[in-house]
């Protein structure tokens, strides 16, 4: 009896494999972002003291991360995501500085010159909008202490202690040396320990 051999087109399995790989990658990205988004929002909120600004920046960071780094190995995603987010936060600081400079130049009234600059400084004990959520006094104090830290120290603390990145990953996220991470973290810990002595 004659044997008939059917040759299936080779492209079809390859395309199916590719679409399956795409679906798997898409699911992994979704899980990664879902797992990180709340902490990312809180970190950004601590930096900007604004929920709205934080949501915008986290969304931008998600777009940037997915656009540029989705195809990197999954193990590299956390530092890469925080690197993108850190860029967005730094851009936000720069924009705000420029805006404040322009506003200061054109909209300053003569009465402003008489005001005490200390009165204009943000109150480090002001809980801010975040702390509607965590009612306890310790949470309020922690939030205020974190907001009072310089940005780099705060990032080092949050990425190392809260997010659990190691020194190398934190350095990659903050685009600085591992030595700088250790220095920032050490200073952050000292400042927080002082500020939270009575609360934690």
């Amino acid at each position: 009896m004659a044997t008939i051999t059917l040759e299936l087109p080779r492209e079809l399995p390859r395309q199916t494999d590719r679409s399956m790989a795409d679906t798997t990658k898409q699911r992994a990205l979704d899980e990664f972002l879902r797992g990180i988004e709340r902490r990312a929002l809180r970190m950004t909120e601590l930096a900007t003291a604004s929920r709205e600004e934080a949501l915008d920046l986290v969304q931008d960071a998600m777009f940037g991360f997915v656009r540029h780094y989705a195809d990197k190995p999954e193990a590299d995603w956390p530092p890469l995501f925080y690197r993108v987010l850190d860029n967005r936060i730094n851009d936000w600081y720069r924009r705000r500085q420029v805006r404040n400079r322009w506003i200061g130049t054109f909209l300053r009234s003569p009465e402003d010159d008489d005001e005490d600059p200390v009165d204009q400084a943000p109150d480090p004990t002001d809980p801010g909008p975040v702390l509607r959520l965590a009612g306890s006094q310790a949470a309020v104090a922690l939030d205020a202490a974190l907001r009072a830290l310089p940005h780099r120290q705060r990032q080092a603390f949050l990425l190392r202690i809260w997010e659990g990145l190691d020194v190398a990953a934190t350095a990659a996220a903050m685009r600085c040396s591992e030595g700088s991470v250790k220095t920032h973290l050490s200073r952050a810990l000292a400042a927080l320990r002082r500020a939270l002595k009575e609360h934690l």
Partner: protein
Amino acid sequence: MNESEPQSWLADARARLDESAQSLDAETLSRLNRARQAALEQRRSRGLRGWRLPAAGLAASCALVLAVVAWYPAGHQAGPAAPAHPIASSDAEVGADDGIEFYQDLEFYAWLDAQEEESGG
């Protein structure tokens, strides 16, 4: 991190931060969800675009080749149709003015011309 750092207050700080992240309000969570979906959708649509671009390029190339093939013989015939002597050149100009019907009726005109010559002679 300093290894000698007492861990209790750090664990407490982590717990407070976790608590604040877990207790985000529904509207914020919904906006985070929408942001995530939009970011992922961007990747999905880029993937589709990646498929469509080669297909569109192929279709455009085919259309171009067809257009050239369809146009080239007509253009090519116009060249040889231009004869060596001047009278043919003027014929070509007439043809350009009157269109292709003129050439289709050329035999008829030749026959008509012959008839007139015969009747005149």
